[in-house]
């Protein structure tokens, strides 16, 4: 089993004025905290329309992981940046609902494309 990328860092890309972070299949609290630092550092950038957290590759997300993502999104919102979590898979969603976490604590979209549409039609 390949576990060599466990302590990796999520790279941020800018696409049409939107920061896109593609999260890896395995999440750790450290990885999510580093992602938060990186996103918050990039958030004040001019011409930035929002931040997309693409979780389509994530296979397992526990309640703590989800809460960490929601906190990152809240912090960005306080700075005036919209955040959309996109690509939640049916398996992950089903577990989050079972875990009774507040799945409405963050804006979501089906995939990156629909998230970009949301960001272009709704002003922050």
């Amino acid at each position, binding site marked *: 089993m390949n576990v060599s990328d466990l302590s990796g860092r999520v790279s941020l890309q800018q696409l049409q004025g939107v920061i896109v972070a593609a999260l890896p299949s395995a999440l750790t609290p450290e990885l999510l905290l580093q992602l938060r630092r990186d996103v918050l550092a990039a958030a004040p950038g001019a011409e930035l329309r929002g931040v997309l957290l693409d979780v389509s590759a994530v296979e397992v997300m526990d*309640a703590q992981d989800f809460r960490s993502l929601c906190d990152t999104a809240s912090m960005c919102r306080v700075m005036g940046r919209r955040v959309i979590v996109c690509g939640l898979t049916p398996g992950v969603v089903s*577990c989050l609902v*079972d875990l009774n976490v507040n799945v409405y604590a963050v804006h979501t979209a089906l995939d990156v494309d629909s998230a970009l549409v949301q960001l272009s039609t709704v002003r922050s």
Partner: protein
Amino acid sequence: MSPTGITELEIAELRSQDDATRCVLLAQHMAKRAGFDAVGQNRFATAVSELVQNVLRYAERGRATLRLLQRADTLGLEAIVEDRGPGIADVAIAMQERTSTGGGLGLGLPGTRRMMDDFELVSTPGAGTRVIIRLWRRR
């Protein structure tokens, strides 16, 4: 080796976040190889994640034992997650929604029970905690 070609027993020592992550990946891998669908794989791996994170958070170290179960008509997975940490003073309260003595959500145990077919928790204050979960593959 089992008929599915997966190892029947995996024991993971839990001492660090990397150990926890490996254990969760292992749980997911076993569920996949045992023929669970994506939602089933997710359920088992997420339940294991909740339990091993509790071990690291409250007991600092522990052990997870993942086992393939075979019944006449289907396969199942079992995880035994145990530690010698402080234990849970009042299991009934811990099994209620939204109680926590630590930094977590306080949602892990009832949520984990909802996701699984079987859930057993034995905890002795000062001696440790053992949780056993099982999930059977739908036919």
